């Protein structure tokens, strides 16, 4: 994965810094609590939510079982529709392919729609090394890029920044990259969005090369799908002459019809909307509408290794909705940066150590970055049993002997401190855990806890009891 994260301290060390930053904690708490409350309302609108979730899980499981044939089918359809398909085993190969494609166009700058896959491989840095400027165009990514910062949330990458901080970043740095912010820039979200609109528009209108990821790739038709809100995606996907999409191999789905499931579950889980403002689908190239050249780079980078793990492979079902981040008590306190990866929160805790292996301190400590409360599993629209994978990965780390054991102890110490919950939470966890089999949808008398989040399926043993027993 990206060199950006090399040398990251282990999760407990990184988390300690975040826990001591009151602004960061307040920003995160406000954002995660707002969004999880809205999500619950959006999900409750659909009487068949549980069935949609099950269908999504099954579609993805079937996809993973037949990934080879689906990718070959996808390649055929994309090629027939005028696209070119490339295969990349790792970050280095993907970066080389994309850099060469950009160099061939003769261009020295590209516009990018937010893409986790390109962040994962550190594409911007690779392009920069080749003398190519890559402009992030998602508002939050722009905030991150201008602030020389790292994203801290899948959906809202600048969730750790408040409006005052954003105003200051725009006022000081926009001019270095292009059109400066207006002199009288205020910190109202409307004014900040307007400044971003003007700053980026000049880049969109002259852009010759666009780079994207994709939410889904339909094998049956060769169609790529991007969901977004702002329109920066549409700008990047339709205005440039060349479009390069870098997509993880697990993003394929078998049929066009499968989208009827994910277009219902993804927006509601992610932004708590019935539907996101814009979705674009394209199949290869179309005469005089959109890019004349389309390249699809299929990325492995640890995915086939993840696929080989019987328990862990379910992490590849993830559709990156970020719902699990917003309900996670550890994420809320530690913040996204502590996870040392583009994939923060519960999904990051199981995906990063699988994609990268557990040799580094940060990756070996990630499976411990959880209270195993189960809230992440409960909200996941493709029913990934994150606690199950965490426990499985802990076993793997522990089996590796000394280092794992030492890390486990440090992680536990820090986690105990991070999870310095109000007493109500501790009590709630313990009582509920004992009655797991009889667990109702809501816990009478525990409203201080249940009001603030969806009620998770509970672990057999409360985390704090387990921790006390194992901390020595």
């Amino acid at each position: 994965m990206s060199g950006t994260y090399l040398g990251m301290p282990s999760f407990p060390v990184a988390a300690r810094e975040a826990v001591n930053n009151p602004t960061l904690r307040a920003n995160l708490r406000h954002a995660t609590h707002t969004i999880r409350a809205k999500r619950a309302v959006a999900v409750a609108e659909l009487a068949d939510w549980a069935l949609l979730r099950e269908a999504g899980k099954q579609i993805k499981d079937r996809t993973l079982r037949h990934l080879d044939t689906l990718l070959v089918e996808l390649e055929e359809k994309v090629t027939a529709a005028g696209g070119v398909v490339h295969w990349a085993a790792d970050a280095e190969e993907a970066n080389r392919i994309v850099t060469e494609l950009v160099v061939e166009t003769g261009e020295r700058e590209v516009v990018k729609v937010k893409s986790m896959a390109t962040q994962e491989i550190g594409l911007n840095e690779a392009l920069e090394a080749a003398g190519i400027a890559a402009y992030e165009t998602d508002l939050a990514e722009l905030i991150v890029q201008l602030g020389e910062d790292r994203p801290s949330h899948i959906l809202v990458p600048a969730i750790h920044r408040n409006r005052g901080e954003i105003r200051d970043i725009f006022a000081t740095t926009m001019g270095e990259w292009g059109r400066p912010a207006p002199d009288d820039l205020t910190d109202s979200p409307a004014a900040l969005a307007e400044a971003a609109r003007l700053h980026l528009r000049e880049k969109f209108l002259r852009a010759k090369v666009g780079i994207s990821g994709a939410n889904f790739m339909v094998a049956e038709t060769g169609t790529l799908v991007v969901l977004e809100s702002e329109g920066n995606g549409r700008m990047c996907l339709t205005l440039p002459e060349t479009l390069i999409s870098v997509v993880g191999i697990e993003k394929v789905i078998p049929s066009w019809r499968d989208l009827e499931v994910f277009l219902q579950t993804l927006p509601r889980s992610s932004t708590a909307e019935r539907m996101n403002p814009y979705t674009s689908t394209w199949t290869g190239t179309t005469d005089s509408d959109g890019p004349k050249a389309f390249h699809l780079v299929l990325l492995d980078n640890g995915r086939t290794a993840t696929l080989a793990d019987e328990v862990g492979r379910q992490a590849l079902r993830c559709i990156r909705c970020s719902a699990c981040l917003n309900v996670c008590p550890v994420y809320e306190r530690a913040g996204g940066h502590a996870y040392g990866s583009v994939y923060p929160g519960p999904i990051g805790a199981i995906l990063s150590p699988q994609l990268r292996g557990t040799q580094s301190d940060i990756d070996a400590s990630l499976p411990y970055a959880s209270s195993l409360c189960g809230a992440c599993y409960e909200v996941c629209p493709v029913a990934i049993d994150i606690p199950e994978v965490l426990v499985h990965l802990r076993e793997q780390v522990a089996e590796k002997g000394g280092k794992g054991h030492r890390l486990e102890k440090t992680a536990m110490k820090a986690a105990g401190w991070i999870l310095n919950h109000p007493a109500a939470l501790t009590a709630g966890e313990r009582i509920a855990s004992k009655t797991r089999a009889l667990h109702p949808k809501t816990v009478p008398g525990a409203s201080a806890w249940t009001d603030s989040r969806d009620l998770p399926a509970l672990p057999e043993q409360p985390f704090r009891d387990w921790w006390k027993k194992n901390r020595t």
Partner: protein
Amino acid sequence: MNTRETILTRIREAVAQAPEVPEPARDYLPSHTPNDPQTLVNLLAENLTDYRAIVHHTYEDTLPDLLNQLLSAHGTQSVLVPPGLPEHWLQASNAQQIEDSSTHTPHDLDTVDSVVTGCALAIAETGTLVLDASPDQGRRRITLIPDHHICIVRAPDQIVASLPQAMPRLDPTRPLTWISGPSATSDIELDRVEGVHGPRTLEVILLSSRSGD
């Protein structure tokens, strides 16, 4: 072995021992709404409005006047017109009509005030308009760059209840743009702001025939 073969081989080895997975059970609902035309029209209008689109109802014979009013109210001097838009729709408007053409640069389009299009269909439950680049909708970019988009939906013919009903009516080989409300962002403290890059104003005209009168 080239990379393609390497990846495919790794996949085959990874899942060789995995059990077969059956076809997904699709026992979720085909729709959440009674299939009654008036209910669908109302629900679409409600959901569009909820996501800050401005909804109007009209009939074939009053459409040109309504379009003229909306364009004037917006202060529109120039309007982009897809090649297959019925000509008489804009007959009452004085705004300069600019025909969609592949020779326009993005900068050219940036000087136009409004765009008027039809749509492929609309989904009531999600408040979504789907454009498929047919002649009455034009290239994808024309509904992106101008700040004001007026989209005309034939009600109830072009309205379906749900996503499962929409999918078989759409052609995936065409480039599709699904629009639910105007462009928006919630990236700053999760406050919703309309119009970051796409049109800040989306107006939807639900066009009915008078036959029921």
